[in-house]
């Protein structure tokens, strides 16, 4: 029946418009996978740098004044920070690439009203968290930096989950939980990062890809 087809299409269009106008739906599962892989590569190099500088890392506070260590001088110029920056840029660029590709495919603008709202909402907890973590570093409380990253990142995603695919909140719960557990094992921060930013992202990405993009 033609009428019935038209009506069904009307209803489908309405549902789609409600989705499209309230949530950023181009987020690709592949973005999660690629960001997770970048994180694991970063952890691999960071672990290597730390292993080679065991003594320096065991007492970070003292290491700053020790000319022989990886952390000597400007903290923001150290090997570890460089690895971290490269990892972050790699993850960001590859995540953007896959989401951009998906937005082309679903024919939704990548930089629109929903994207702006998503970014603002993810940014508020993360910027506040970033400032808090810088203050921790400034006060040489390094042990809580890793769990802090996981917790604030999780809170950022949780806040964002209202403005994008709602399954992102499971990723958020995972990050927050790992961060909280990490508080009790502050020396193992790097491994919690590998689990949170690496493994969780990859699992989440595979799940989302399977659910939305397989075909």
């Amino acid at each position, binding site marked *: 029946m033609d009428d*019935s087809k038209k*009506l069904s299409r009307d209803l489908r*269009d309405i549902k789609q418009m*409600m989705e*499209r*106008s309230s949530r950023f739906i181009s987020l690709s599962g592949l973005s999660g996978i690629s960001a997770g892989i970048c994180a694991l590569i970063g952890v691999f190099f960071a672990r290597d740098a730390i292993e080679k500088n065991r003594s320096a890392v065991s007492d970070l506070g003292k290491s700053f004044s020790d000319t022989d260590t990886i952390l000597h001088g400007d903290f923001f110029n150290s090997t570890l920070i460089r690895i971290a920056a490269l990892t972050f840029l790699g993850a960001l660029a590859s995540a953007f690439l896959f989401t951009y590709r998906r937005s082309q495919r679903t024919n939704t603008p990548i930089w*629109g*009203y929903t994207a702006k709202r998503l970014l603002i909402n993810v940014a508020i907890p993360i910027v506040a968290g970033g400032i808090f973590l810088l203050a921790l570093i400034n006060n040489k409380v390094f042990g809580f930096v890793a769990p802090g990253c996981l917790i604030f990142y999780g809170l950022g995603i949780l806040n964002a989950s209202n403005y994008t695919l709602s399954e992102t909140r499971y990723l958020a719960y995972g990050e927050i939980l790992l961060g909280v557990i990490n508080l009790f094992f502050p020396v193992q921060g790097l491994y919690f990062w590998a689990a949170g930013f690496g493994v969780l992202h990859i699992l989440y990405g595979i799940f989302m890809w399977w659910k939305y993009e397989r075909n």
Partner: protein
Amino acid sequence: MKVKLMKNPIENLNKVFDSRIRLGIMSALMVNTSINFNDLKELINVTDGNLASHIKALEESNYIKVQKGFIGRKTNTTYSATKAGEKAFKSHLDALEQMIKNMG
């Protein structure tokens, strides 16, 4: 009322919503407190003139309301659904669903 709705739901379809663009505008405004002209245009993918005329029709039916404001010097006109608009749109949706049920 219930019986009538079951028998002839086509009477419950709202003539004002007999346009894909108007359906689009209302759908977007049902899930957002307010949206400005440019974002609506981008969401629905229509020309300025086309969008404006449909907005006017919805406004005249008192289904949406217009707020004129400024961002710096530029005008920023935002739209939101009125209570009457939400109610009318919901009954329109119900009627659509009912019709599909009856046909299937």
